[in-house]
């Protein structure tokens, strides 16, 4: 969905052809989202079908065909920007499923799982810090903000690991005392 509106947003500034859309989209995302040109063409065709963009000039080599935003496209974009993301929280990473399984399976080695995952999060924090530094150095404040969001998310993941570790440790202590 965000690719569709990303394309609309880029076309709001000026008419572009497929390759320009791809390049600008990827540079806007600072290399955090790579799209192939086929996806861009498909997206542009669907947007044209739905009347949100229209081609400029005669239909020749599709690589050279420019698209501009229609009035409906403008409206759809504004509505999308005005809407909050209110869908369910997306948890894409495998750790969530691993955690559930490790809790269920005997010898699931939950403490080991948590310790290893914690290290991975620490390393990610370090990598994100370097990425944020680079974005600021390059004058990409928008990208630095995106990385900042990722840093705070990873910090929360790390806190979650700590909470689970001390919960597990506490339970083990309790069992020993009884």
């Amino acid at each position: 969905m965000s690719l569709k509106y990303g394309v609309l947003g880029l076309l709001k500034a000026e008419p572009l052809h497929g390759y320009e859309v791809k390049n600008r989209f990827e540079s806007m995302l600072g290399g955090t989202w790579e799209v192939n040109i086929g996806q861009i063409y498909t997206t542009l065709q669907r947007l044209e079908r739905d009347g949100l963009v229209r081609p400029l000039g005669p239909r020749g080599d599709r690589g050279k065909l420019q698209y501009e935003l229609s009035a409906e496209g403008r409206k759809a974009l504004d509505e999308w920007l005005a809407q909050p993301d209110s869908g369910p929280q997306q948890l894409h990473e495998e750790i969530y499923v691993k955690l559930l399984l490790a809790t269920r399976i005997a010898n699931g080695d939950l403490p080991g799982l948590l310790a290893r995952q914690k290290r991975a999060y620490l390393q990610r924090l370090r990598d994100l810090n370097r990425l944020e530094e680079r974005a600021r150095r390059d004058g990409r404040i928008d990208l630095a903000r995106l990385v900042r969001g990722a840093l705070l998310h990873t910090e929360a993941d790390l806190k979650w690991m700590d909470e689970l570790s001390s919960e597990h440790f506490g339970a083990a202590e309790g069992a020993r005392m009884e």
Partner: protein
Amino acid sequence: MSELVRLTDVTKVYQGGITGALNGVSVSVEKGEFTAIMGPSGSGKSTMLNLVAGLDRPTSGSVSVGGTDLGKLGEAGLARFRRDHIGFVFQFFYLLPNLTALENVLIPAQLKGSPGTERARDLLDQLGIKDVGDRYPARLSGGQQQRVAIARALINNPTLLLADEPTGALDTHSGEHVMELLGQLHRDGQTILLVTHDAKLATRNAARVLSVMDGKIVDDARLESPERAPSEVIRVRGEEASR
């Protein structure tokens, strides 16, 4: 690199409670390392720092810094060790309110009997606060006070800089600035041990993170700093267009 700090089977027991106790900690720190110590409150991380600083003595086990076994030093020897080898930065700065910023920075130099005024001015300059040398702490912001405290910690060229939650009382921006300064000191060769709750800030500079829980080191993570492409670090994902 050579070893600077070594804790061997260190135990610290406090009367009347287990908070902050240590239970058989062994670890060593190399010269030039920036190490972060992380863990929940009461886990013993500040106790570790205090033992390395010679502010406290272990119940059993040994602590040595730069080859000196701190357990072999008497009270006067320990005070000399702290003055000559340790710089300590605290969460709440602990500047003396009736002395100016510059006078605060000069205290450790005066205890050592060296003048240090020139170095103090250089440090204030290096830390970006050369204009506030004549002000009293009450007239400084939190970030400025912490920078004065860092200058005070550095005045005698300490072998080891210890910092206990140095950003804990600061707003985000000042905290980042203070951490940036610590990073700069480390790049200039300073060995630093940092206790903090803030993993975001810690991993900016520390390539090693010790996790302490219930008086034990439960993890010793060494982080890498390769050049990574943005997509190896973050992937922004939208739902694929399918309609």
